[in-house]
């Protein structure tokens, strides 16, 4: 069976799946930082009610399987709050992002807490407000500490994104399945999809390692010196 020409025929279609998958990952990662970082700050510096809310959020999104979360939001929560018209792509990306935020908040929290307490004391002793100290002293250090662990979220979300297949997001795995149905070629097509996932994984991690090196500072072990 001559698979290669068939694969090449379907390549543009596969590529559209790559775009969709990467879109899911980027939105989810971005949302994860946007929500996860304030959540981490709330957990470290916030008053008790804030810490409690964040704790419940993290418990909820880490406690449920990704598939359950997707169905819950797709069939239940979004329609119930009048957002039933949202596309599967948007719902998938948002759910991945909300879930990612829970995990990422804990990566950021650990990093913030591992910045020595003397850094805050020194900053305050110079007359900085707590907010200025967090922004100018704590976060620049915490983000460097967090980056290696945070990088791990990329392959996690990339592989998790395939589950969005279940609510009909037209991402890489959905497209792969459609090609399989059309061509009746199974293993080679799935292998091609697997190869694409591996390449995306490798490329993304390479970029993140590059970033680690770029922001590395003497004595600030990111392990990428």
């Amino acid at each position, binding site marked *: 069976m001559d698979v290669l020409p068939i694969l090449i025929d379907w390549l543009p279609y596969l590529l559209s799946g790559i775009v969709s998958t990467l879109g899911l990952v980027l939105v989810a990662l971005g949302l994860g930082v946007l929500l996860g970082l304030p959540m981490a700050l709330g957990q470290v510096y916030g008053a008790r009610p804030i810490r409690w809310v964040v704790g419940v959020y993290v418990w909820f999104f880490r406690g449920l399987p990704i598939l359950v979360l997707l169905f819950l939001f797709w069939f239940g929560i979004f329609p119930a709050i009048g957002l039933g018209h949202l596309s599967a792509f948007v719902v998938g990306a948002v759910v991945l992002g909300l879930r990612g935020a829970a995990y990422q908040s804990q990566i950021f929290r650990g990093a913030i807490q591992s910045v020595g307490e003397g*850094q805050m*004391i*020194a900053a305050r002793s*110079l*007359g900085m407000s707590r907010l200025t100290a967090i922004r*100018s*002293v704590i976060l620049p250090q915490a983000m460097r500490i967090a980056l290696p662990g945070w990088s791990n979220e990329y392959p996690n979300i990339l592989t998790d994104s395939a589950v969005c297949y279940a609510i009909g997001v037209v991402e890489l795995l959905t497209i792969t399945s459609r090609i399989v149905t059309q061509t009746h070629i199974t293993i080679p097509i799935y292998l091609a999809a697997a190869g694409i996932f591996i390449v995306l994984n490798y490329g993304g991690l390479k970029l993140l390692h590059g970033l680690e090196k770029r922001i590395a500072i*003497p*004595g*600030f072990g990111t392990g990428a010196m």
Partner: protein
Amino acid sequence: MNDNDIVLKVEEIYKSFGDTEVLRGVSFDVRRGETKVFIGPSGTGKSTLLRCINQLTIPDRGRVWLDGEEVTNSGARINYFRQKIGMVFQNFFLFDHLTALKNVELALLKVKGMGKAEAREKALTELRQVGMEDWADHYPAELSGGQAQRVSIARALAMDPDVILFDEPTSALDPELTREVLEVMKKLARNGMTMLVVTHEMGFACSVANEVLFMENGVVAEQGPPDLLLNDPRFTRMKDFIGRIDSRMDD
């Protein structure tokens, strides 16, 4: 002595941590240009006292005045007072992600709102003061303890404080590095900087301090010029303490 010379007034400071009374009513006045040295056994509240002055620790009772303005209970204005009360820590607490220069610049930019060029100029001047201008582009991890401490002194100086609090500035350093830091501090004292120094360096106390306060059990037990406390037979407690440290050193 005229009251206008008093830059810092500390009144009846009390502080407990749990059941432990660390400070039990400490009062003193600091005149402009004066160096006061605090000596005493560990755990007698010397460091806590310094932290109560700039409110890094909130005292249970008592008041602190800087130039006639109350520092205690000053709410958000505490950030204004802290600019005027510099602090140098035992473990330096340099900002680990910034070069020596940026360490000194940061509060000039973020707190004083200085322009970049002006802040850089000011920071370089202060680094020169402490003999660290050649190390301006080095990160804290690349500095020796003595160098790091000198940078942290420059960082405090850059704010043009009315008084600097030194919390055991040489306790983390070996004797040679201690000497280079003490040299800088002596120079500051000679140039008229007002300093409160918690230290175990008797040599520094004797040569620089206008007044030594010997603290024990949360109170100032003896107070006076170093010569007096060391030589006048009416004062015994600090001499006893020093005797105890010296005999320990002989072991």
